[in-house]
């Protein structure tokens, strides 16, 4: 199990993590992150960091894209669910670490409420990451899996004043200064989708 997890980090996870880290650290070159008001900081976080945070969920099932590899790993002693859960834990921890770095960078020169920003954005990232994982597991195609969070994010960008119909599942509540108190529902739904994705992929069910 340790070796499989180590190989996951070595061959699949590390470059996603490094790319996400580089993008997070170089973000001030592309997006204004100085002297931002609370609302402007929330816009940068909700619209940009959400994408970075979601990207890191991509490698979860990537090593087993090849069916033969999947079957081989299933023959191992340790249950594949456990392997996926450990990877998911690693991904979640990494996304939270990246979020921490992003918010620390914002905090140095802009106005933010660290705790509230952290919780709300973690919920956003879990939701889109969970959607990606579930879509990937259900279709067994990474491209199809990516389609769901990308289109959901795009829909939230264009939903305009109808965003209220999305309720707690609207991604940019905070930058609209709306009450984001239901963020926990968004985050929990994301974690639920993540769990369902792992269950479906482990049991080899899909729409194939």
């Amino acid at each position, binding site marked *: 199990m340790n070796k499989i997890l180590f190989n996951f980090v070595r061959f699949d996870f590390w470059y996603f993590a490094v790319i996400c880290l580089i993008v997070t650290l170089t973000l001030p070159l*592309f*997006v204004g992150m100085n002297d931002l008001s609370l609302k*402007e900081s929330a816009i940068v976080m909700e619209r940009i960091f959400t994408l970075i945070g979601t990207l890191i969920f991509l490698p979860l099932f990537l090593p087993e894209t090849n069916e033969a590899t999947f079957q081989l790993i299933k023959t191992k002693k340790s249950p594949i669910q456990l392997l996926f859960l450990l990877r998911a834990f690693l991904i979640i921890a990494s996304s939270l670490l990246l979020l921490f770095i992003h918010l620390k960078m914002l905090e140095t020169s802009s106005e933010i409420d660290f705790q509230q920003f952290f919780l709300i954005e973690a919920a956003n990232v879990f939701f889109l990451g969970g959607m990606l994982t579930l879509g990937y597991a259900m279709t067994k*195609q990474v*491209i*199809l899996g990516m389609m769901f969070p*990308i289109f959901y994010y795009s829909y939230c960008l*264009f*939903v305009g004043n109808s965003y209220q119909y999305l309720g707690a599942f609207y991604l940019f509540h905070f930058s609209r200064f709306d009450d984001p108190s239901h963020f926990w529902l968004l985050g929990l739904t994301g974690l639920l989708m993540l769990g369902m994705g792992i269950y479906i992929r482990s049991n080899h069910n899909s729409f194939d």
Partner: protein
Amino acid sequence: MLKEIEISLKSLTFWIVALIIGGFLFSQFSGTPLNEPKPNQENYGSVQATDQETIIAQTMRNLYIQHEENTYDTYPFVFLKEVKLSSGEQAKVKKILEEAIGQPLDSLQFETMIQTEQGYFVESDFKLPIVSSYDYSKFKQDMAKVATIIGRGSDFEENKYAISATKAQTYQGAKAEFDKIKEKDHVVGAYARLISDYLVIILSLAPVFLAATVLVRDQRAMSQDTIFTKKTSTFKLVGTRYLSVVILMTLVASIVAIMPTAQSMFVASKLGVFGNPLIVYAYLAVWLIPSILAVTGISFLITSIFGGIVSVLTAFVIWFTSLNLGATKLDGFAGWNLIPRFNQVGARSAFEAMLPQFINNRMLWSAIGIACFLLSVVVINLKRKGVLRIGKNE
């Protein structure tokens, strides 16, 4: 070719993409009414002003407001960034303003700012008294200095202020515009631009999913090596797939446009005009096909080199950047943007003004798409011959 279309038609990806394109258009398009202007209306909207006097007046007014609040709007990359200047930089901007009005700025402040419960605001019809000796070349020099002080993406860059000035439309102007929409656009053309505006947004992204899956299909089925041994040329092999994606995406756009086209024909009939639906489809073809060609071509090239994940991520970055760069001029701007915008009904004169730019834009993106497709043929051919061994199974 038909076989390729048939395979894609049976794929889950195609139907999800088609549903999303349809859903997006229906969520955005609403039957905005097109009313004939009547004399003595309160206002007739506004049009772009191109005379230098208006451009100077409105840009300086904007500079004055942002200087007073020491909050300068900039779009350095994607999002609004409000810049605050140091006292030294503020003094430089103040000097430029004072040169333009020929008097100390402080003498204007209390005449122009009105206080409300929400704070201070500049009177809506306020005009800075620009001195007659302040000409356009001096104005351009000053704005270049201001743009340097504030930083990238401010309102005082020439490409921004030259197209941002507006003037109130008159009854005669509004009537002439309305008559033009009836005679030249047959009314439906006015709506066709809006339908195209919405569809080009989603069609500058959606084809990548079909394109990437079409190209990795053989890898997934592990039939790539078998297919590579066939006699068929790589150009034919990849070309049929490229065309099938372009045809299917165009077909989806044509089908989802039926309902808004019917709505616009209904509006036309109420105005006593036959709204020829072919006008709408001509707009859709010119507006959308270049974007589909480009996104599909770029996706084919990147998928053939780096695989589907990188292809989707690249397409998303291009789409997101294009979308945000065009967000400051929604009511009509093409530039070199992948997503030319025209988010208004009517305004044929404004569209005619941007037409040369629009045509160049569409030709450029068509050429980029076809060039990328041809390069992908070269890459896949090299892979087929065993010269190149890149790309991952997805």
